[in-house]
């Protein structure tokens, strides 16, 4: 992954972070909220090679760490999403090219969002954070997963196109 592409990707992710924080969070989704940011980030990571997924996970995590509503220590999301990026890159090779298998892509991203939130929660417990009742956490994780599953089919073609925009001419070949 080139520096310029990392920069473009970071800019796109920050834009989605702003949209998430200022608009999407305002909508009272049934069950629990939808994280557009996580869906886009995991979509990007799923299309990258190992190094790309790890770097994007770290950048995306750092941006998420900046969320003013977050109470967690800075670096927590970066750590988790770097690991998630690594796990994604390790497993995606067995699933083939996502751009040719959209259903697998949608399922992968939805499960990835739910798994990431679960990891946030578990890591929070390790750090001694109080994240509320089991039921409300279950609602948040399952709600996010369901909404990602429902909305990803609309979003993912756009994510694939956005990623193509960040590719350098050498990478396109």
């Amino acid at each position: 992954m080139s520096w310029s592409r990392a920069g473009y990707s970071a800019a796109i992710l920050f834009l989605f972070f702003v949209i998430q924080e200022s608009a999407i969070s305002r909508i009272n989704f049934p069950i629990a909220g939808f994280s557009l940011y996580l869906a886009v980030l995991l979509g990007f990571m799923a299309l990258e090679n190992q190094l790309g997924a790890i770097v994007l996970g770290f950048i995306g995590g750092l941006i998420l760490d900046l969320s003013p509503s977050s109470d967690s220590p800075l670096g927590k999301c970066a750590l988790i999403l770097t690991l998630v990026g690594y796990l994604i890159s390790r497993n995606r090779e067995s699933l083939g090219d996502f751009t040719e298998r959209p259903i697998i892509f949608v399922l992968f991203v939805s499960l990835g969002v739910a798994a990431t939130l679960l990891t946030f929660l578990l890591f929070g417990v390790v750090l001694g954070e109080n994240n509320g009742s089991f039921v409300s956490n279950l609602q948040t994780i399952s709600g996010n997963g369901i909404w990602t599953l429902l909305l990803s089919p609309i979003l993912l073609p756009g994510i694939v196109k956005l990623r193509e925009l960040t590719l350098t001419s050498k990478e396109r070949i």
Partner: protein
Amino acid sequence: MRTGGSNRSHLPLVVLLVTSLFLITLDLRGVSVTANSRSATQSFLAPIQRSVSDFFSPVGNFFTDVQNFGNTKAALKALQKENAKLRKKIVYKKDTKGQLVKLEKVLDLAGRGGYKVVSARVIGKGSSSTFSQTITIDAGTRDGVQRDMTVIGEFGVIGVVKSVTSTSAIVLLISDPTFRIGVRLARSQSVGVLMGEGDNNFTLQLLDPSGVIEKGDVLLSLGSDNNKPFVPGLPVGFVKTVSSSRATLTQVASVGIYSNLNSLGVVSVVLRSPNEDPKNSLVPIPIPIPTTTVYVTQSPEAVVTPDGVAKDQN
């Protein structure tokens, strides 16, 4: 060779993981990296949230409105008769009116208690991925808002200022799992702690082992030293059910709150509390239900015979 290649590909992973752990360690050791970076993000996001808020205020409750479609069917039918232009205007008018009504109630509550407040619009909500219950308001240090100030809604306490910039502030809602507030029961003056659970459920634990909680008891804020973070005497909630477990030393109860935290439009931050504790003066007064009295008068023509049968004299 393969091992060497694998090690090389793991190097960035290790570097980034160590960087993350380094940041976490810095943060946990109290280096102000987090506060400054999040404060800067908040300053950047606040104007965007404020402008987006105007558009999303009517749209934000779309799903809730769909769920309550049956209740608002009559209102929807009336709206359907109007043309698109007028409908748009009405939506905005309704939103403004709703906010005004809420503002009126908030100011009424603050006025009755003698609190000096500054009112603010809710311009953002905390992301669900952070597991914390927060809102962003459009008042900051420029308006006199400081960290750890009590925030009230139309029916009482809704949260406390968690962080503040010059033009906005993040409010930790009462429903957040980390939220704790000292309360007293208006009826018995017993003291306890109210805890948020991340949803609409709250738990009250009495501190006094001999204290007794009853269903319907009103909870008022106990207040803190120098009125930070909580001013005394504000309504917080009411007891829904009392758990009568013998395993606990003190009584525990499930509590409901008066405010709907999902539809906060306007809130007020308490800048200064009155010199005297308002005691129980802010306990919500239940709205009296009008009773219908039916008078039954005996018809002058009807006579009841000793065997209980009514007969007409004519």
